[in-house]
């Protein structure tokens, strides 16, 4: 119930493409859903986050789509660039808790 399932495990897209990374959860007590970007040798960095009362949030080239009834959320990267090549983690936070439960990560490669 505490798990967040993330797919795909890896993804290769051409520059300008729109990679989509999906996450699903079971615990309806989750109330905050962030995405983190991690470059090799660095800590995860917060990219964008959404709460379940909103179905979509956009920040620059990054968009989260949230489907509360399906308990799924996804990250879309518009006009992807080679500099976007990184590992992306979805996460979820349970109401009343400060800990984040992370997905297993998606390694994205954007080829020129």
């Amino acid at each position, binding site marked *: 119930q505490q798990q967040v399932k993330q797919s795909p495990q890896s993804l290769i897209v051409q520059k300008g493409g729109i990679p989509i990374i999906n996450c699903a959860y079971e615990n309806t007590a989750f109330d905050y859903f962030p995405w983190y970007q991690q470059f090799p040798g660095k800590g995860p960095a917060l990219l964008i986050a959404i709460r379940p009362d909103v179905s979509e949030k956009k920040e620059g080239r990054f968009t989260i789509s949230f489907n509360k009834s399906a308990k799924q959320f996804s990250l879309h990267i518009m006009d992807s660039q080679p500099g976007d090549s990184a590992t992306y983690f979805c996460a979820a*936070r349970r109401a009343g808790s*400060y800990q*984040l*439960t*992370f997905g297993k990560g998606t390694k994205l490669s954007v080829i020129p």
Partner: protein
Amino acid sequence: EPEVTQTPSHQVTQMGQEVILRCVPISNHLYFYWYRQILGQKVEFLVSFYNNEISEKSEIFDDQFSVERPDGSNFTLKIRSTKLEDSAMYFCASIPTGENYGYTFGSGTRLTVV
């Protein structure tokens, strides 16, 4: 931009030895965390710390682990008797208030137990 600073960046230790991982959170942050990431796997929660006490801990955070904020700026994670399976990247993180959930993570300490 303010950073969470972790030292050392890499620590090699023998099995059974004690290690202390150090973190300097962002100065006006009040909530502190340790997470770990075994190579190639997901980031896992270890412990959260607020107002000089542990507020939450995971099942990973057993009696071999402890945390401390000894001097108002440093935040440390101690592993008393390291095991091979403790080899991982350990990340410290902090947030300013309980209402702001956007963690700032440090760059991590790679712990290798041999």
